[in-house]
């Protein structure tokens, strides 16, 4: 049954996205980052895992023809590290936000739609999760479990759903009171049917917009955890790069090239997500498509002859 909307869906979304500058810019930024992650072995001039023989001059060497972005504390090529680091950051961002959105969306819709005790129970859990400071808990959880990439994804995922849950709940609360839900009941639809066909489509744009925020949050969280030295030391993420640069004297050495690229990478991906998310929201919410209340000069568009 869901097929029908998707048939017109993806083509239509793409057609409209092409005309949406903000969305296109975001998409291009994100695609560049993803492309970089996928083709890392071909793009990177050096293999970051390969052992290198270095002299004292190779440590924090400034950018040169040989090393476009200089070298880090271990004499490794920063550009290669940066390119490979995108893999980890993006993986964590996407998977963790997927977990968070799935948990938050489910809890939010169930709480909002069923109401009563169900809602009370779920929302109190959410409140508890919300008031626990994320970072210390994440630190504790990661420290308790083995610091691996998947553990970090999992921890960020299960700590990041609260905002989504509250947002989705409030939206489904208002949607379920709408008349068309009553109409769907009058048609004979059951609760699951109504959630799937009437509540979800109206909550989805919000979730998409939220996914964007959560992706960027997850990437930031991962960077934070890595920066604090809690990530798997064998995986190299942007946060990890920052951590190494920070703890191993890049600042005092004046090696800005070790700090700026990972920071720039994080900002790039987060910004790309945000732009794409807003673009998608404009498309997925059909009521934003035609601006009934759009006010602007183009509204008066009589030909010049008429005016004269």
């Amino acid at each position, binding site marked *: 049954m869901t097929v029908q909307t998707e048939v*017109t869906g993806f083509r239509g979304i793409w057609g409209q996205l092409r005309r949406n500058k903000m969305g296109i810019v975001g998409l291009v930024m994100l695609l560049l980052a993803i492309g970089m992650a996928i083709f890392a072995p071909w793009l990177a001039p050096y293999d970051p895992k390969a052992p290198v023989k270095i002299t004292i001059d190779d440590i924090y060497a400034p950018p040169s023809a040989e090393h476009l972005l200089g070298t880090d504390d271990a004499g490794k090529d920063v550009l290669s590290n940066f390119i490979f680091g995108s893999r980890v950051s993006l993986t964590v961002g996407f998977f963790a936000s997927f977990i968070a959105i799935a948990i938050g969306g489910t809890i939010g819709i169930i709480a909002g739609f069923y109401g009563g005790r169900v809602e009370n129970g779920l929302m109190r859990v959410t409140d508890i999760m919300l008031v626990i400071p994320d970072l210390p808990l994440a630190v504790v959880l990661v420290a308790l479990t083995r610091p691996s990439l998947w553990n970090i994804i999992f921890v960020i995922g299960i700590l990041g759903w609260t905002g989504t849950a509250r947002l989705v709940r409030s939206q489904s609360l208002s949607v379920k009171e709408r*008349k068309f839900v009553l*109409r769907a*009941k*009058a048609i*004979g*639809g059951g609760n699951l049917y109504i959630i799937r066909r*009437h509540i979800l*489509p109206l909550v989805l744009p919000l979730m998409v917009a939220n996914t964007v925020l959560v992706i960027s949050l997850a990437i930031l969280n991962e960077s934070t955890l890595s920066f604090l030295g809690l990530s798997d030391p064998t995986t190299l993420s942007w946060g990890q790069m920052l951590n190494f640069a920070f703890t191993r004297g890049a600042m005092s050495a004046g090696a800005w090239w070790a700090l700026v690229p990972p920071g720039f990478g994080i900002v790039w991906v987060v910004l790309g997500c945000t732009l794409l998310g807003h673009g998608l929201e404009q498309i997925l919410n059909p009521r934003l498509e*035609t601006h009934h209340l759009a006010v602007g000069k183009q509204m008066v568009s009589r030909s010049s002859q008429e005016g004269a």
Partner: protein
Amino acid sequence: MTRVGKSTTRGPSQQIDEISSKTLWQANVLLDVRELSVDFVSEDQSPAHAVEKVSFILREGEMLGIVGESGCGKTTLMLSLMRLLPAAGRIVNGQILFMGQDLLDLSESQMGDVRWKGISMIFQGAMNALNPVRTIGDQIAEGIKRHQLVRSKEWLDERVEELLELVGISANRKNQYPHQYSGGMRQRAMIAMALACNPQVVIADEPTTALDVMIQAQILELLDNLRHQLGLSVILVTHDLGVVAEVCDSVLVMYGGVTAEYADVDTTFNKPEHPYTQQLLGAFPDLSNPKSKLVAIPGYPPRLNDLPPGCRFEPRCQHAFDRCSQEKPVLHQLGSFHEVSCHLVENR
């Protein structure tokens, strides 16, 4: 519960063009509502008796008008026919016999089969009753899909187009969204939607609210035509007595959750017996006598959790006497089809 779908092949010409009033009163009874009472419960207050012991019948091909002020229980009554009351609503008494089957005996899933296929509803305020993010065609198809009437994808497309054409919307607009429709078109789309599963009974809950007079007239004409064309039975809930006089066969006047008067349309308009009906008619402009004054009914409808002990209309009634404030009037039968709940008509 037997399947209540109708499998007639429909062509406008094969159907009875005009159901003459004589045969109408002998037609089969589709819906027989007996002494239906609905309460709204709340934790800290006594239950509000939104509807109390309302009975009416709906015959095949009949159009029944239900009139009354806002808050007199019209919509509550209609929603309880489909068992779609809000969470606080309780049907505390009565029977709803739909083709002989008491709907209140059915399980929720059986009831789900009756909804839309047996009894469907045109909601008031079409903009709110349409999902803004799904196309009109998709939403019309919804009911057909729910009741597994779909034969093939092409058939479904054709059926949706046919339904749209039936209500005067060109079929190529089926992939548009509700906000691309005008108010009148949305209401038409709602009607198309209500007809999707060939229901026997269509409840039209104030279908013309928030529409201008021209569109109102068009919508009502459409409803009336469709009724004759498809042999529908329609319950029309409205404030507008003019509309009732025009298209309805019988009228149920409600006041404060009870039946005030229930009769055929001629009797209601020419020989109303209940003071409320009389005053309601008096509150309507008379075009043939432009100098006549409009008379308002003083006061407000009663609060449903604080009802007067006697007749509910007593505080506002010009003809009230002692007994009215103490004793609830029962429904008196006057003639074959005229019921009035008023002490005044007792000795007639």
